[in-house]
């Protein structure tokens, strides 16, 4: 093994390893921070009715109604991607993805509620969640750039409840 090969080997294995370590710490930091922020905002919005009812309860009298949406686009960090890649070999729960999607769901719903509050609405009913995959331009569109999480529902004002 010559010097060039040693350098090549260091670049081939050392650099991804370094990125992996950095990605883990940075990703972990951002995730923890985001969860703290989500919990804080959820507490602030506590009591705002968000339901999956398709039809209104008969005793609710609705004034205005509007569709509100909240959307968030999330991406994997390198650490999660590598671990998920290994998981893909043997199967099972991709545990590193779970907090990522949990964050996305709750963030999207929060944004939807914030939008509804801003519009002066009292509740959101018939809430639905949708995801779509955003393809990466690299890798012939097979790579995943990120996932969009979209929460939408019908915001309503209540005359009385």
């Amino acid at each position, binding site marked *: 093994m010559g010097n060039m090969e040693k350098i*090549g080997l260091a670049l081939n294995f050392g650099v991804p390893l370094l990125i992996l370590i950095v990605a*883990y710490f940075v990703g972990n930091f951002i995730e923890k921070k985001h969860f703290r922020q989500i919990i804080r905002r959820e507490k602030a919005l506590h009591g705002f*009715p968000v*339901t999956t009812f398709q039809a209104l309860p008969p005793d609710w009298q609705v004034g205005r109604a509007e569709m509100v949406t909240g959307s968030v686009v999330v991406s994997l960090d390198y650490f999660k991607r590598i*671990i998920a890649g*290994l998981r893909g070999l043997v199967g099972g729960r991709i*545990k590193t993805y779970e907090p990522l999607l*949990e964050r996305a769901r709750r963030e999207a719903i929060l944004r939807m509620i914030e939008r509804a509050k801003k519009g002066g609405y009292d509740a959101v009913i018939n809430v639905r969640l949708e995801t779509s995959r955003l393809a990466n331009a690299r890798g012939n569109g097979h790579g995943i750039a990120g996932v969009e999480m979209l929460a939408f529902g019908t915001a309503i004002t209540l005359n009385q409840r």
Partner: protein
Amino acid sequence: MRFIPRSPEEGINVSKEHPLVEAGTLIVGVGLIFAVIAVALIFLVEIALYFVPAEKEAALFEDWLPNDIVAVSEDDERSQAVDALLKRLSQHYPNSPYSFRIAIDDSEFMNAMALPGGLIVLTAGLLDAVKSENELAFIIGHELGHFKNRDHMRALGRGVVLGILFVAISGSGAGSNYGASIADLALRGFSRSQEASADEFGLGIVHKEFNHVADSWRFFERIDEGEGELLDLMTYLSTHPSPDDRVDALIMLAGENGWSITGELTPVSW
């Protein structure tokens, strides 16, 4: 209808397991699985070697010259002299299935390689560094020893197997860089025992050619004395045993066989 607000419950949708625990389990587990597969495949290489005898290999790789490994310097005027020396030396390896060929690589680093089909690659840097035919004869004899033991095929087989395995793990494309590095390592890495055995064969050839083994290891002594540049030395050491161990082993070998370690030297013609 009464509405009772509730906060989302924590920890239902998210595993409690620490991501590093999952990472560690997966890396160790998958690593073990692939280590087992690699060992099994390397064993298969040994079986394949048994079924592809040297004659078949020689026919298969007759004109093979891998351009991505060797940058042949076509117009090196030393090639005729080296070729002539190879012809003389290969006579002492009778019944060899190979028709040996020399290619001079234009690299300035000192190295020699044995490749399938009887192809011996010497670098221009190595030819610059040898001072006598006796030194060069031992280097060529050593590579002939690799052919005798079929180390070159073993290394190639392992390289291919590990390369394929790596591409299989990483999916096509993405991991091919890693695959190439691993394959490269396997391709070049002969074990110490393989090197020692090739040395023994090479020294025997030198003795048959010159009737003495004087200066066979002079080349390695010079490396050991630090005559070559550091970079050269590192290149050489990484594929071969350390020079002073090697010289000691060669002197012992000559003593055991009663081969004279003094004699007339033939200087190189360039």
